[in-house]
């Protein structure tokens, strides 16, 4: 392992698209998830086995977490947020596999996920509240705050992408530096920290995405509830 191994390298080109090792790893992760999900869904029974129990536990936990934040729209948001958590956990932990680099140490991948979160926030907000009601929340509590709201939308998206990229990149970089300085097996404690950090970053990214989406959905409802309380 050398310092070039951490860099993003193009593997091949597919027309105008350059396929990097990040994309290949992502495809591999997607393939593994697809096969595992297919195996699980093929053998679902009313009385579950160990694998089905684990799958049901994961899905139920994700649904409960989403329902705790936005109970009325949990079923609609849960596939998106759950996919973020599952993908990020596997993608972050994939860096522990020798000669495999986590896709999330690539700013292009984390930026793509952040953009997806950004777009999905508006998508769910407009779908659920309508365009007019959704756009109105940028003027709350005062139209003066409109520029700040717009800047907040951009900065939090950038922060979402950079936070995940920076943490995962730094973990791999630290492991590489320790390996270069101290030698074989020395980075093992760092790798254990990698596990914790991977889970924490996946949780943070998914939870922030959930809060952003729920905030976009519930801002109009909160305003209506406040108006209802004031009239009462």
């Amino acid at each position, binding site marked *: 392992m050398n310092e070039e191994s951490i860099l*993003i390298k193009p593997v091949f080109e597919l027309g*105008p*698209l*350059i*396929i*990097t090792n*990040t*994309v290949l790893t*992502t*495809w591999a992760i*997607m393939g593994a*998830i*697809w096969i595992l*999900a*297919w195996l*699980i*869904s093929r053998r*679902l*029974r*009313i009385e*579950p086995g160990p694998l*089905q129990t684990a*799958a*049901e536990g994961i*899905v*139920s936990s994700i*649904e409960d977490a989403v329902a705790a934040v936005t109970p009325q729209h949990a079923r609609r948001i*849960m*596939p*998106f947020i*759950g*996919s*973020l958590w*599952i*993908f990020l956990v596997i993608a972050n932990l994939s860096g522990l596999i020798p000669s495999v680099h986590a*896709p999330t140490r*690539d*700013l*292009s*991948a984390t*930026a*793509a*996920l952040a*953009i*997806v979160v950004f777009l999905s926030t508006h998508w769910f907000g407009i779908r659920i509240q309508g365009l007019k009601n959704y756009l109105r929340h940028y003027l709350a509590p005062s139209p003066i705050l409109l520029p700040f709201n717009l800047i907040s939308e951009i900065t939090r998206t950038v922060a979402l992408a950079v936070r995940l*990229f920076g943490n995962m*990149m730094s973990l791999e970089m630290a492991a590489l530096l320790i390996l270069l300085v101290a030698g074989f097996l020395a980075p093992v404690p760092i790798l254990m920290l990698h596990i914790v950090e991977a889970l924490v970053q996946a949780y943070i990214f998914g939870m922030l995405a959930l809060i952003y989406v729920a905030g976009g959905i519930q801002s109009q409802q909160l305003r209506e509830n406040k108006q209802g309380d004031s009239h009462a």
Partner: protein
Amino acid sequence: MELSWSTFLLEIINFLVLVWILKRFLYKPVLDVIARRRTGIEDQLAEAQRHHDEADTLKAEYENRLADWDQERQQARDALAQELNEERARQMEVLQTTLAQEREKAQVAESRRRAEAARGIEHHALQQSAQFAARLFTHAAGPELETRLFDLLVDNLSSLSSEQIAALSTQWGEPPEVIMVASAYPFAEDRRQRLEETLTEVTGLSVPVDYQQTPDLLAGLHITIGAWVLHANVRDELKAFAEFAYAAG
């Protein structure tokens, strides 16, 4: 650190595809099976609740039925007890009546037995007194007594009315060939003559008289005229006295 637009676009597409894959192959089937299990559990709970309600209903029904049975049993028991008391009272009454009748019968039998015993004792006493008198007269009687009895007999026969004599004549039936006269002591000639005259006067018969001496008579005469027997002696009088006394008692 540079942004690759190819990677950026492909990652967006990849994630959207991944969302579709997970939704199609994981979330939907798993949530469906959880929903089916929850529905099954709710159905089982509803079924259990229905069974529980039915059991409660049956329990209440059986309790009511048991209460009714207890009440009917108590009523039957009371009726039986009342019937037993009435039957017992009736049987006691019958028993007391029977006992009273038996007691009365026993008292009658006892009084009868006592009367019989008294009569026996009295008869025995009379016989003993007759024997005592006979024994007394065996030593005390003598020709004087016989003479007085003879005089008393002749006086009585002489004083009979014609109706009495006619009644006596019907008792001996056919006229006898002989009149038998027994005495305890030897009968003197003058008394024989006086007796024959009196008999001829009373009976109107003129038949021979046969005289016999019978010491058992103690004193007095025993005259047999056909079927008519005249006891004018101490032995027969004592016997007659005892018989009459016993018959009167």
